[in-house]
């Protein structure tokens, strides 16, 4: 199913709204992660507004696709996308990380049951997604729903990922798609300085996965990759998405220091102005 130009434009607009929400949330929360969430907006928007089989009004619909967020610290993008998709009121986003909020600092499904898993400690999401895919194969439900797992690249330092990668390859889990946010940064610096991952695509291929590399900000490429994965019969698919950390706000882009901190008031004001004017393309700044 090719994606129409109209749909691409629509998703791009949604992505901009989600980025604005992320800045608003982080400013209000005064803690949290900025770079990862902004970098993954285009992929989350494409999933929730195009690819995923889901119903925000019926989050427990059994035939829904499952999305497991492994790198829980980028949850502002998950929460913001879910709110814009209609799971809950966008106003609730400002409760992020506050006492009693359903939007815990790292996702907890006790608080927000529409989440598929709780996550935060890195390296265990893919195992859970593999378990879901194996269960669906067992029950012959792999034709009616698919399992998606979102991973960070720094997260791949965790050995457990590779245990899961091996098991998925062994079991030929073609109902499973992993997405690696290849933004090249982690808390302490650039991934290739902290713990080199390259050649990343060769690693996955060696474990019997089908590998697709894409520009993680090109909606058409993103949508096509998810569509292509559906046609791969013999293997699970990994989409290595090359993204720009902090994408959408020039000041934040490609700077690992934005991995784990929120913007202050002035930085947020600047970021919101950039997003609301579409990077200066339009003059009037809408609230």
């Amino acid at each position, binding site marked *: 199913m090719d994606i129409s130009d109209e749909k691409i434009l629509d998703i791009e607009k949604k992505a901009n709204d989600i980025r604005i929400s992320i800045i608003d949330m982080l400013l209000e929360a005064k803690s949290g992660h900025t770079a990862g969430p902004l970098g993954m907006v285009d992929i989350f928007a494409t999933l929730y507004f195009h690819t995923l089989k889901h119903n925000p009004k019926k989050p427990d619909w059994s035939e829904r696709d499952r999305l497991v967020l492994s790198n829980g610290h980028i949850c502002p993008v998950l929460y913001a996308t879910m709110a814009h998709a209609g799971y809950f009121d966008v106003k609730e986003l400002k409760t992020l990380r506050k006492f009693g909020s359903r939007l815990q600092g790292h996702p907890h499904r006790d608080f927000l049951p529409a989440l598929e898993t709780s996550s935060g400690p890195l390296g265990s999401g893919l195992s859970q997604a593999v378990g879901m895919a194996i*269960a669906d194969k067992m029950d012959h439900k792999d034709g009616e729903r698919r399992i998606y797992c979102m991973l960070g690249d720094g997260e791949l330092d965790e050995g457990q990922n590779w245990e899961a990668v091996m098991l998925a390859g062994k079991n030929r889990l073609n109902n499973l798609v992993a997405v690696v946010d290849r933004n090249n940064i982690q808390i302490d610096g650039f991934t290739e300085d902290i713990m080199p991952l390259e050649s990343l695509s060769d690693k996955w291929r060696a474990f019997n996965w089908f590998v697709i590399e894409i520009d993680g900000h090109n909606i058409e490429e993103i949508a096509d990759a998810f569509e292509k994965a559906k046609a791969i019969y013999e293997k699970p698919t990994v989409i290595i998405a090359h993204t720009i950390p902090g994408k959408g706000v020039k000041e934040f882009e490609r700077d690992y220091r934005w991995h784990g901190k929120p913007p202050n008031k002035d930085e947020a004001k600047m970021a919101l102005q950039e997003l609301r004017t579409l990077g200066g393309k339009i003059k009037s700044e809408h609230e």
Partner: protein
Amino acid sequence: MLNSNLKLNKKIFDKDIEQAPIRKGFGEGLVSAGEENPQVVALCADLTESSQTHLFKEKFPNRFVEIGVAEQNLASVASGMAAMGKIPFITSYAMFSPGRNWEQIRTTIAYNNRPVKIAGSHAGISVGPDGGTHQAVEDIAITRVIPRMVVISPCDTIEAKKATIALAKTDTPVYLRLAREKTPIMTTIDTPFEIGKAQIVWESKNPKVGIIATGALLYKALEAAKELEGKVEVEVMNLSTIKPLDEKAVIALAKKAGKIVTVEEHQVHGGMGGAVAECLAINFPVQMKFIGVQDEFGQSGTPDELIEHYGMGKKAIIEAVKSLKQT
């Protein structure tokens, strides 16, 4: 004297009492649980036969997942399967699961509220010749500290089978502690079992000391009680569910006996004795002695040699009872 209501093995004190490994009862119970509920599945980390999971694998090959030597993956894959409605049992040695994969159990199973059942075989010092690396004597402590986790340590193979069938019907995570060696079969198929219920196995009208035991060492406690008969009156409790603790029964025994000895094949810190002490400190403080491993690691040897060396045998229990009585 033995509690006749429990319909215990009549040959319990005979020299030729039948023995079987506790893990065997688990293997049989898992098959029964699988027959009762098609959602029961089993996952193993390359220890299928020694964890007795092979019985389930042979009966339900399509509901068995071989994970390989990867215990962290084992725990989280099971969590994912539980998310799709399965009741997964994960099996390995206790040292590796819940040992190596503790954080995955804590976060992806318990925090995530998934009803995964963790069966840890080869727990305790009586693993024997494999040595200290393989002797899990910390597993009760690290599982009972996790919110939502139920912790069960059956006393023999029959109780292990009943516990396995019962825990498959619960909607919480459970840790089931199993042992490798053959140990005496004290209970019968007619002995009642309920998760969370302690039982007085050896009764006394006017006990001076209460002995609370868990796992196969219950037999050593019963041998001690028999030898003390006519000298020091004791009551012996089988505390197979360590969490949730049967507080009512523990407090009642403390009130009746006034002094408590706990007996477990586990570190004395943080184990079953610790759970009993936490309960009594709040509700009815009494003097206690803790039989268990005294803050050290195990080593190679026969199970009997090791139980004696680390002070968990009949003699050590009798000494603990006598020293408490004198105070």
